[in-house]
């Protein structure tokens, strides 16, 4: 049992830290805010040029080939530098599925394009009638020669408005159990018959959408894995989504930000950071976070050999999202009256606290973290059933 860094690890840490300092410029940070798509693409291209855009991919597909420790160091430094995660739909989600289940042709076509951020991906899982009960999905794919004809609707599709491709779960067979007859398929968003309807979320932003499919023709060669075996693929992918969702490093950074801003905030002559009630709540978060970091490391260590994570990753998702929301709530509290200010075209300083807008946006959108990726209720069902053996 040992987590000490070797000299090589320390040198690697310095290299990562130096890269983020140099490459993630204030201009880029500002662009991420003003034009998220362009900013994210520019940043991911920089990471690609450095060879670091896909730390979790095997080296043969263009990944880094890092050890588990190096991945951990990278993630920690990324978060400490305030650098956002890559957009996960391509680089994390569909890429893992294609690597595990895709044909050689699919790997050769899609993986390099994902690596270079040439395609923007989105995820077509949930439907208006199928949320937690994902397997009840109804979007229909009917065989027509070499193609499938898709009809139905997907909802809560993040960034569908930008997407070039969507990976979808569709129903190819109605005859058996609902988990059977589901197929995982890749659909070009430029196909005829696709309509994207924006959904404004409670942070007043547009990142969610409904995507409608009316007689959309998709080549059968776009199916990943076997026809009718999409549920297996989906479960593996959701497990991946869950691991990333823990966001330990990002919660650590949030704790640091909380301490910085609470040190500046005064209340009747006392720093908010010195308020015992405030300190106790923050301490509770930190204690839980310290444990979660090692829960995550233990999970990573068992997965170090590669392959998909198992049902235990549900724990990371539940605890991680709870802690994210707890830190978001504390930042809102620090912002006090300013937590409610909607952005206007004014210098944030003219209004009050500069961090308040970010606090509101992450707090409001952060409500989704316990809902998406399989709601935390579903995660508890997974643990109860597959870890504890409760039926």
């Amino acid at each position: 049992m040992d987590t000490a860094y070797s000299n090589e690890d320390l040198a690697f840490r310095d290299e990562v830290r130096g890269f983020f300092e140099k490459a993630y410029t204030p201009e880029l940070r500002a662009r991420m805010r003003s034009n998220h798509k362009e900013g994210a693409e520019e940043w991911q291209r920089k990471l690609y040029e450095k060879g670091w855009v896909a730390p979790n991919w095997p080296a043969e597909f263009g990944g880094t080939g890092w050890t588990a420790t190096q991945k951990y160091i990278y993630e920690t430094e990324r978060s400490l530098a305030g650098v956002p995660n890559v957009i996960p739909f391509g680089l994390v989600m569909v890429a893992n599925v294609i690597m595990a289940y895709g044909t050689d042709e699919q790997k050769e076509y899609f993986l390099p394009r994902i690596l270079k951020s040439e395609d923007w991906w989105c995820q077509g899982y949930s439907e208006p009638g199928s949320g937690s009960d994902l397997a009840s999905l109804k979007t229909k794919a009917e065989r027509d020669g070499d193609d499938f004809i898709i009809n139905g609707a997907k909802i809560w599709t993040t960034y569908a408005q930008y997407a070039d491709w969507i990976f979808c779960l569709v129903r190819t067979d109605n005859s058996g159990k609902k988990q059977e007859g589901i197929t995982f398929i890749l659909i070009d968003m430029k196909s005829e018959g696709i309509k994207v309807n924006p959904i404004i979320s409670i942070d007043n932003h547009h990142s969610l959408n409904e995507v409608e499919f009316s007689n959309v023709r998709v080549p059968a060669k776009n199916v990943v894995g076997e026809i009718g075996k999409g549920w297996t693929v989906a479960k593996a992918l959701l497990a991946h989504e869950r691991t990333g969702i823990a966001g330990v490093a990002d919660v650590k950074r949030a704790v640091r930000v909380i301490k910085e801003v609470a040190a500046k905030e005064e209340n009747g002559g006392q720093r908010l950071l010195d308020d015992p009630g405030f300190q106790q709540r923050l301490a509770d978060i930190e204690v839980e976070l310290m444990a979660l970091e090692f829960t995550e490391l233990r999970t990573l260590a068992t997965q170090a050999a590669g392959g998909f994570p198992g049902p235990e990753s549900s724990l990371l998702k539940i605890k991680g999202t709870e802690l994210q929301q707890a830190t978001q709530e504390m930042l809102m509290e620090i912002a006090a009256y300013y937590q409610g200010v909607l952005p206007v075209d004014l210098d944030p300083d003219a209004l009050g606290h500069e961090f308040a807008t970010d606090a509101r946006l992450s707090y409001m959108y952060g409500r989704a973290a316990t809902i998406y990726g399989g709601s935390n209720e579903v995660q508890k069902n997974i643990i109860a059933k597959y870890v504890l053996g409760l039926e």
Partner: protein
Amino acid sequence: MNFDFSEEQQMVRDSIARFVQDDYDWDTRKAIVASDHGISRDNWKLFAELGWLSIPFAEEHGGFGGNIVDLSVVMEELGKGLVVEPFFPTVVLFGGLVKRAGSEAQRAEWLPRIIGGEVLGAFAYVERQSRFALHDCQTTATRSGDGFVLNGEKVVVFNGEQADHLVVLARTSGEQSDRDGLSLLMVDANAPGVDKMSYAMMDGQRVANITFSDVALSADALLGEEGGALPVVDAMTDEAIIALAAEAVGIMAVLNAKTLEYTKTREQFGTAIGSYQALQHRMVDTMMAYEQSKSLLFKALCEYKQDPATAAETIHALKVLIDRNGKHIFGEAIQLHGGMGMTDELDIGHYAKRLMMINTTFGDGTYHRNRFIETAFAA
């Protein structure tokens, strides 16, 4: 022992509930919030005609002569409809200060105009550095001839965009954080030297940051005793906190009812999600959170009605509990509505945002827990 509402109170409640149901549906409210001024002046006139604006004022000024229970009934029902017309800033804050601090002449001048819906008011008290410590005040009113000259800045002034008149908390003597030396001044919002920067809040309110640059005020702008404003402001704040708690209780009731209804109708895994015991227990928890909040509100109402001075401890406790239970209830409402709860289109998130602003107004749970400890553990 009697926790019933009087016939008159029931009539007021019904009257507001009817208005919300018939004339303030969700689309109507959305349109009002999105309109140029963010409120409906027609509604305000209607509120005056229906007598709602007269509730907390004495009969001699044309008021209803209502007590804290009457006021809480109004606030609870307005809360259920998420009514954005500025009842709280104009009647509870602005009117609350005039009725407490004003001379007989000032009361006779302002209260009938508030009751008649002719004036929209605001109380300018938050400063950039002040957080919840009202006495942390840098805005100054300096004696000049017979009157005063006002300088400084107030931020997040509720109803600051639409208010015609402001009561401003300013320092007439002493140092920045002294409890003495604060005064209340009536200021015409359109007077020379008054500058507003207006913006919207997430709960639909229009507020403003207001700067005062050498604003000349006559001697009769002074509301109450020079240098002795803080006790009056604290007394008004106690009433305002109870009023906000009543509004919060109204919102909690709506959130719980809507969420319960949703879990009875939303089907997943072939059955209504409300049939799952794990969710049933959580809805029992939110129901209990609501009942507990209501109970503490009732305790505060009883004490305050008897003698406001005895209610201090309960008022701090109430703010703590409303903060905690409010977050619990809106958190569960969003979570159990799933993706739908995340949409701006659905009202759930808007009720949540109003609860969040209620929680922070006049001090959040952390602040009032400290005040509670100071009060309750002092002996």
